[in-house]
Every structure is written in structure tokens, then in C-alpha cells.
């Protein structure tokens, strides 16, 4: 990959600083993984609970390197026609219809079937050439002149067969199309794969990737994130809010609040002009944090205790 901003990735620390300038606060592990991925030309497999900024990492990296981001969302039943390439069938059909007469001209005067076929062969595989090829995300990433950031989102949602299909791309940055042959990347893209761990990925896939696990951020990092995203929020409330969330994550809930929910909550509190967290405010805004009625019911009677613990922590 042709890296435009080489100076920005000269060390993990510089990467971290530049990410921060872009509003993405990250841990050392994240910065190290990006550093290694850029220099070793390896894909990164990013795992972690939902809402900790896995997809965001790819977006910010593309911003950092000023490279285009090509995103492919995986889902069950995704196949290579949707991920890699497809022929433009409509165009092919239309052209065969339009060229019928032309073909008649070409064939005129040919003696016997053999000669006709030989003449036809002189035209090559016009209907299976580049003009009729519809590139999909993977092919686009391979064809990008200056390299690209390829984000394969939620790979765990795709089928196992699709995972196997990706192996060639991930290790050699090339892909085989039966009609066209092997297509090699013009410039190796940086690949991010994200997974929510809904199923175990195969060892073959894991072997080809760097593995990055993003946990929920520590309190200091989360405070930094809030400062970056909602700078207007006052210091005391911010601390209170982060402590409360971290207490909440300790509870056995169906879905614990992620970073994105913390940010939403912070924005809401700002909008509501709250300057001190108390029982009533939490109760009215709890549905921003918790997405299951069961969870809300479980947390409501505990609010006071959580708040006390959160205040003590600070």
C-alpha cells in the first residue's frame, strides 16, 4: 500500500496522538495493532463487545492515512457474487441482442460450422471482459491504485464457506476469478475484520490476522472519550457519569451499556441541563443506557446503591 502520511505512523505513540487529534481516543494496544498492520501488511481481526469502536477504528485509520475506506457488511448468505464481483447480466443480454445482426455479417461467407466457430473465437471472450464486470467491495479494494482500507464488518455473521473464501485474499492479497484468472492487488490494502463473537472463527482465518481485542475502556480513557465527543460537559458530571457506567457494567445485565451509549447519555444530560447526577435524572434517562426492559427493571431499584458506589469511587 502506498502510504501517504508515513510520518503519522512512525511509531505506536505517534499513531495514538494523531488518532486523538481526530477525536478517536485509543489504548496502547489499539495503536500498536495499527502500527503492526501498516508495517507488516497484515489484516487485523478486531473483536470485542458491541459499541466499543471497532468499526470506528477502521474509519479513523482511513482518515489518518487519507486512503479510501471500502466497507463490506457481512450477513448470513453473503456470497462471492455480492462480495467480489458479478457480471452485468442485463448489459450482456442487451449486447447479444444488439449484436445479432453484426454477428450475421461476421459469419457471412463462412464455410461450414468449423470456420464459423474459428471466426467467432477471433473475437475472444468479449462478453466476459472488464466492461461487463461489476466489481464488488473486495475486488474494488484490490483494484484501488493507491491502496485502500478494507473493512469487513461482522465477519462472524457470514457463513463458514465465505470465511474460507476470504483466506486467499487475506494471505496473498489476490483472488481468483474463473473467467479472468488471478487478480492481484495493485497495492495491498489494509484490512480490518470485525467480529462480535457470535460464533467461533476458524483457526485458518485467525492465523492470517493480527488479533486485537478491544474491551470496554478504562475509566480514564472513557472520560477522555467523553471530553472529545461532548466537550461542553462539565468535569464533575463527566466523572460521575463514567463511574456510574462502570458500576453498571459490573452488574449481570443482558446488554451492558457500551461506549456509544455513554456518549448518547452524556449528550442527553447536556441537553437536559443536568449538572449533578441524582436518582430522578438517572431513572428518567435510563432507557438511553439500557436496551432491554428486563435490564431496566433490574437496575431501577439499585440506582441509589450504584450512585453511592460511583460517588465513592471518585
Amino acid at each position, binding site marked *: 500500500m502506498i502510504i501517504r502520511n508515513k510520518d503519522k505512523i512512525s511509531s505506536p505513540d505517534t499513531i495514538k496522538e494523531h488518532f486523538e487529534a481526530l477525536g478517536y481516543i485509543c489504548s*496502547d*494496544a489499539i495503536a500498536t495493532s495499527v502500527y503492526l498492520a501498516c508495517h507488516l501488511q497484515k489484516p487485523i481481526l478486531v473483536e470485542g463487545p458491541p459499541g466499543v469502536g471497532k468499526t470506528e477504528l477502521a474509519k479513523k485509520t482511513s482518515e489518518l492515512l487519507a486512503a479510501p475506506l471500502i466497507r463490506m457488511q457481512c450477513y448470513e448468505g453473503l456470497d462471492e457474487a455480492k462480495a467480489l464481483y458479478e457480471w452485468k*447480466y442485463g448489459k450482456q443480454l442487451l449486447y*447479444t441482442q444488439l449484436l445479432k445482426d453484426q454477428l450475421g455479417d461476421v459469419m457471412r461467407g463462412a464455410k461450414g460450422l468449423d470456420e464459423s466457430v474459428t471466426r467467432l473465437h477471433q473475437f475472444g471472450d468479449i*462478453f466476459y471482459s472488464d466492461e461487463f464486470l461489476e466489481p464488488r467491495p473486495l475486488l474494488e479494494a484490490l483494484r484501488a491504485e493507491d491502496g485502500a482500507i478494507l473493512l469487513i464488518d461482522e465477519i462472524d455473521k457470514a457463513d463458514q464457506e465465505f470465511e474460507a473464501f476470504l483466506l486467499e485474499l487475506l494471505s496473498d492479497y489476490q483472488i481468483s476469478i474463473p473467467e479472468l484468472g488471478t487478480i492481484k492487488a495493485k497495492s495491498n490494502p489494509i484490512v480490518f475484520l470485525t467480529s462480535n463473537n457470535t460464533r467461533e472463527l476458524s483457526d485458518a482465518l*485467525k492465523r492470517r490476522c493480527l*488479533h486485537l*481485542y478491544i474491551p470496554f475502556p478504562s475509566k480514564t480513557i472513557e472520560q477522555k472519550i467523553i471530553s472529545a465527543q461532548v466537550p461542553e460537559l462539565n468535569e464533575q458530571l463527566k466523572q460521575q457519569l463514567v463511574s456510574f457506567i462502570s458500576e453498571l457494567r459490573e452488574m449481570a445485565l443482558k446488554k451492558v451499556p457500551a461506549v456509544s451509549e455513554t456518549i448518547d447519555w452524556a449528550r442527553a444530560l447536556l441537553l437536559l441541563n443536568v449538572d449533578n447526577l441524582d436518582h430522578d435524572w438517572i431513572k428518567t434517562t435510563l432507557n438511553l443506557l439500557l436496551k432491554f426492559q428486563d435490564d431496566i427493571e433490574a437496575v431501577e431499584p439499585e440506582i441509589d446503591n450504584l450512585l453511592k458506589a460511583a460517588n465513592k469511587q471518585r
Partner: protein
Amino acid sequence: MQKVLGDFIYALRQAGLPISSAETLDALKAAQLVGIDNAPLLKQSLGMTLSKRLEHRLIHDQIFDQYFNGYGHLQEEGGKPLSQEAYEKAENAESEAVNSEAASEQAAASTSSSVENPNTSLIPEAAANLSSPLAQQLMAGDMSALQVMITGAGAGAGAQEVTFSTQIPIVTYRVMQAMGDSELQQELQELAKEDENSALVQLLRQRRSQLQQQIRDYVEQQYLLFNQGESQKLRESNLQKIRLTSVDHSNYKRMGELVRKAAKRLASMHSRRRRITKRGMLDVRRTVSANAAFDGFLFHTKWKSTRIERPKVMVICDVSGSVSSVARFLLLFLYCLQDVLPKVRSFVFSAEMAEVTELFAKKEMDEALAEILHRWANSPTHYGKALADFEQLALADIDNKTTVIMLGDARNNGSDGNIAVWEEVYRRSQRVLWLNPEGQTSWDTGDSIMSQYAPYCSLMETCNSLRDLNRILGSELKRSG
């Protein structure tokens, strides 16, 4: 550096991490890129390339700390011996970075020896006359050189092959010998004869016991790094072979984990098969695309898929007195199986039969097992009655896609076996497995009526260890897919 990383990776593999050679190469490249002076960065880089799972990552981090604290002299790899001060500094830096106890211990040891240095200056001429190489080394107090010697001698004495903790003392002794301890001892004895040398002798003895301790630590560390995993592996594979009846209580928990492992393996096999199962519909898009070249004539039809009916499984488990010792495990497996396969109905019986599918689904494993054993176990077996109940409960639901599995010893206390019901079951399902915890030789002995049921079973197997269970169910799953 390659050697160091190679050993490190070997240690990781011993701890059960599946590390391929491709990953080893990646790790080497990463280490070259980030350098080895920044311990936290190196740890993260190696972690990312070598461990691909959260639990593996935790093991990796732990072993990294253990391992690289032993290689405090990593920087000296170039062969450039460091002065003691520099070594201490490196050691301190290392212990700060890795923050492990042993490193600071070693640093403390080297500090204490440098404190003694003034004493040494009192007896320089005597020290200069020392003949044995080890004594000279000890007097020079070059800890890093000693550590290198220990590592070298340790490899020769087989420190990495220690399989049991009881071997540690003898290997320690061997390493001491390899470093020239006998010569040192001899010299010490000679020196001790003359009074004027007493200070020197005392110092040397003190240093020697320090060294001994250091070697012992080293051997122990090697044992922990390289071989602890081995004995655990041995234990697990033995456990798989042990008959279910003779497993003692302390192994219960481990067994449960193995059962879950086996069930999980079955699950992943099964889920893969399920994904192949698709629906039988014309795939319009693919059909049109495949036929574009034929001027739109539909030569090849492409189908979304074909429908395969997934099999239902019914498992009947004998929990009566005669099989009480294995019942718990059969139930445990039954529980895991139901967790894992989508359509399992579970039944238990001793005299009366009851369906426990709901119970398994609702309750935690321990609770469910306890309740079953409490309610239905430990009464005399009556296969006839149980099968009559089964007829009522489930016979109507058995069709040719159902697999029926019986876990029991067919010991019927001399009463009527109600063979007719079993015959009907077989007629309907054609796939009936009988897994008997007793060996084939004891079938039909005493009150066992195995042979009466035998004609109506498609498969009869002895099943009294986890390995049996695993194999039988595995092959059955393959066939039923």
C-alpha cells in the same frame, strides 16, 4: 533472538496455545519491527501475532512475564558482557517494566553481593590464587556471566525436560556439577585448613549457597514454563480413558469440562452440517446470470438448495441403582447434548419413566441433575414398566427421522422386559442405539436381558468412558446428517 523467541513459543505451546509456524514468523517480524527494548510494546506485539483468542491472550501475557524475566540479560545477546552496574540497571529496569517478583529478587541478590564488595577487597591476594574456575567466577561476582553459565549448564543437564516437580533437586545438583561445583568444594576444603583464609571461605560458601538457590529458581522456572502443561495433558487423556464408574470425586469437575468440550465439538460439527441444509427454490438471479451467455434461454437452472429434514433425537437414560455410579455422567452428557442439539427429548427412568426435557431447559445443570437423581434414581429397575410409560409419552412422535438412544444396562430384576414396545420403536425409527455401560462380556449375565432387546437395535455398544461416548455419538451424528 530467534532462539529466545523460539523457546518462548515452545513454552506457549506447552501451555496449550495452538501456534502455527506462520504465526511464529509473524511474531519474529513483529519483534524485529518494534525492537526488544520496550517490554510492554513487545508484549503487545507478540500477543497480537501469537494468541488469537482472549483466553489465550491472558495465558500469553502471564507466560511472557514469567519468561522474559528469566531473560533479563536479553540485551547481552550480542555477546557484549555488561558491567555489573549496567546489569543491575538493566535488571531494575526490567523488573520495573515487567513488575514481577523474581526479577526484583534477583536484582536484590546482585545488590547484596555488591554491598559485600568492600569485604572482598580485604582478601584480594587470596582470591587471586583461587584455582577452580567456579570459585573465580563467584569471586568476580559477575552475575550476568553466572546467569549465562546457568542457562548453558541447564540446557546440558536437561532442565527443560523436567516432567515432575520431584525431579527439580536432582537437576539442580546436576547443573551445579556441570558448572564445576566439585572442584569448588575440593578447593574450599583445602582452604578451610588454614585459618587465615576463613573470611574468604565464608564468603565463598555464602556465594555458593546463593548460586545454588539461583539455579534452583532457574530449574523450577524452566519446569513451570515447559513441562507443567505436559502432565496436565497426560492427566486429561488418561481421564478420557478411565471408566466412568471409577472416577473419583476430585476429578468430577474436570470431567464435566471434558464432557462440555466433547459436546461442543459435536455441536460445531452439527452446525456446519446445518448450514448446508437449505431450501429448495429456484434461484432466479443465479439462473439468469448462468444463462446470459445462451441468449437468455434457461439452459442451466440454479437451485437455492434442497431440503434436508434434520433428525430428531430421543435419549432415554437409566438412572436406577445398578447404574447409579455412571448415571450422573450419562445425565451430564445428556444435559450438554440437549444444550447443543436443537431437537433432543430426554427421558429418565428407573421404574417409572418421565420426560425431563423441560427440566433440563429450565434449570441449571447442577440443580437439574440433583433433582433427577433425587426424584427418579435409586429404585429398582423395571424396563417393562418404563417402556410402557415411554409408549404413552413419546411413541407416537417417533418417525423415520428420529434417532432413539438408550443409555442403560438392561438389568431388569427378573421381570418382563416389554419387548414389544421396543420392537415398535425400532419399527418406526429404524435407528435405535443402545449404549450399555457394562462390557460386552457381562451382557446377558445375571438378570441382564440384553439379548432380548438386541434384535431391535441398529447399534449396540459398550459405553463406559467419555471416549466411547464421544466416538459413538460423533459417528451417529455424521450418519444422521
